[in-house]
């Protein structure tokens, strides 16, 4: 079930009423039922995958905890008898047993994801190689459809299991509660990828009805619909016109496409997250924020700490650190320091871990070379900026411009355009075409085309541009206001008349300006495809 459907609004309305009618202790059970109904709308057969992930995670978490308990009681019992070395050896043996169970579950669940999401991509690439070597053989593609949100819930669930393995928090004894954590409907299709310790308290506790939750939740949902329907879906028409007609729209249009897509993606993804967070808020449940004004970032590394925060931190905690500080990697780093040089030795583990993480981040977004190249280019930019930081420090030390408004604006603009440039890889058919189109920015650049009727050929009318300029300005103002504290709290402190006039204006804007008129269709959220 997509957020931008009447069905979802009716679903949320019914759930909201029922949620506050049923006794408090059963509310989380109602949420579980609702979440499965929500997911079943995408296809009942897909429930099997989420059920398999839930069951396997629960069974393996039981195994892990059993080993941990056995270890604690054995060490307690033999406290006086064992030497320090014996204790260490025993702990290592038990950790190794746990690691095997964990690996089994990771392979099973990431295996499902890999087969469903990357099976055909791998087969297509193998077929390409077979054709290259004129073998005359071709493998047939797999006929499985990709369940919606599988990348999100698999990552969230495996994060939970790794945390149980690391003994970060106790495991969830109730399988139904675990099932709710995995399938909680607002975040099921496009995140955020929540952590169990962040969500469990708010998800399972008994919430009473509060007017503030209703008011704040509705505001957030309205704001999300505004971003999605008024901005993202409208601007997507312009993006599609440019990227689907590369022969016609070259040069300056590629830059326009980049700019349009940057805004579209922001409005689409943050809009979806606003609806997710707002829907949970209606039920008294707090989901952690997934964005922190990312387009105000002064570097790519900072951007990635502020955009899709839950995914970035997942990769950092469960992939970057485990690879970069693993024993083999530290040993390799030591070897490089001794045999190749201090400079390489100090960096090698960070470089290898970064390349693996960014390759995976790329392929997480989609099974295509575009995404892999996009991920690796992000990695390259981050590593190069890291190496250039001593030069930046020298420059800042000499010219003292670091804290001036104009220099910060330059940094923000540079990051925005660099990110938009890389992200264009999402849009064109393949990597080759994308780079060809990058080339036309230099070879076919003519800014005057835009003002000689060019902007009117992108499927957008003057009124569309006016709506977009006003809406994007509004988002910019809200973001700027948000730097000094919650905008909603500030609005709540205003007179009632002003507050309700604002809500009504946004509601009206969605109804009148929402992109569902002739020629438009409320499209799927971009991130729900990932």
């Amino acid at each position, binding site marked *: 079930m997509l957020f931008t459907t009447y069905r979802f609004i009716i679903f949320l309305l019914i759930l909201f009423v029922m949620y506050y009618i049923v006794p408090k202790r059963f509310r989380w059970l109602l949420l579980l039922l609702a979440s499965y109904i929500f997911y079943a709308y995408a296809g009942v057969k897909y429930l099997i995958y989420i059920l398999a992930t839930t069951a396997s995670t629960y069974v393996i978490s039981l195994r892990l905890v059993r080993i941990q308990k056995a270890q604690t009681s054995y060490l307690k019992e033999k406290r006086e008898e064992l030497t320090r070395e014996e204790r*260490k050896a025993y702990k290592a043996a038990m950790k190794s047993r746990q690691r095997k169970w964990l690996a089994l579950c990771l392979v099973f669940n990431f295996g499902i994801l890999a087969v469903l999401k990357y099976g055909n991509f791998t087969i297509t690439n193998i077929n390409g190689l077979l054709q290259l070597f004129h073998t005359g053989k071709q493998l047939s593609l797999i006929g499985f459809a990709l369940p919606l949100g599988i990348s999100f819930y698999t990552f969230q669930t495996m994060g939970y299991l790794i945390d149980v393995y*690391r*003994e*970060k928090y106790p495991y969830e004894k109730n399988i139904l509660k675990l099932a709710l954590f995995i399938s909680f409907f607002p975040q099921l299709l496009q995140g955020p990828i929540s952590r169990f310790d962040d969500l469990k308290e708010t998800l399972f506790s008994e919430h009473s009805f509060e007017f503030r939750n209703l008011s704040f939740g509705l505001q957030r949902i309205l704001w999300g619909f505004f971003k999605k329907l008024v901005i993202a879906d409208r601007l997507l028409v312009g993006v599609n016109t440019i990227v689907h007609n590369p022969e016609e729209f070259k040069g300056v249009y590629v830059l326009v496409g980049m700019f349009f897509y940057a805004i579209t993606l922001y409005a689409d993804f943050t809009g979806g997250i606003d609806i997710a967070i707002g829907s949970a808020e209606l039920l008294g449940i707090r989901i952690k924020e997934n964005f922190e004004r990312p387009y105000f970032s002064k570097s790519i*590394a900072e951007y990635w*700490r502020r955009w899709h925060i839950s995914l970035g931190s997942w990769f*950092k*905690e469960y992939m*970057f*650190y*485990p690879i*970069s*500080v*693993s*024993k083999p990697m*530290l040993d390799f*780093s*030591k070897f490089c*320091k001794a045999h190749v040089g201090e400079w390489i030795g*100090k960096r090698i*583990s*960070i470089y290898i*871990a970064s390349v693996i993480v960014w390759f995976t981040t790329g392929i997480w977004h989609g099974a295509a070379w575009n995404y892999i190249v996009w991920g690796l280019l992000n990695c390259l930019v981050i590593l190069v900026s*890291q190496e250039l930081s001593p030069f930046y420090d020298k420059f800042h030390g000499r010219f003292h411009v670091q804290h001036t408004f104009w220099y910060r604006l330059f940094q923000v603009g540079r990051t925005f355009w660099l990110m938009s440039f890389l992200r264009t890889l999402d849009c064109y058919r393949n990597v080759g075409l994308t780079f060809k189109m990058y080339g036309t920015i230099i070879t076919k650049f003519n800014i005057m085309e835009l003002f000689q009727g060019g902007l009117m050929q992108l499927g957008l009318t003057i009124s569309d541009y006016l709506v977009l300029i006003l809406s994007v300005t509004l988002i910019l103002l809200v973001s700027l206001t948000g730097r000094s504290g919650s905008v909603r709290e500030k609005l709540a402190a205003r007179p009632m008349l002003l507050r309700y006039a604002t809500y009504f204006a946004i509601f009206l804007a969605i109804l009148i300006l929402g992109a569902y008129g002739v020629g438009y269709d409320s499209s799927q959220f971009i991130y729900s495809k990932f």
Partner: protein
Amino acid sequence: METILEILNGLHPEVDFDTCNTLIDDKIIDSFDIVSIISDISDEFDITIPVEEIIPKNFNSAKAIYALVERLMEE
């Protein structure tokens, strides 16, 4: 403690590691720095810092890192 301070000063000479106790919270050191610190600690003290110990509490100050190293050496 001196070795820890040396490692930290080598990464960020501009920071006063004797007094700062918000290294992670204020984003003074990033994930690349943490990996460098762990690598240097493993060289100097011959210990392995398990990944589950990479939490803000253990890396927010030179003292916290020192306490972590001492604890791991005792284990």
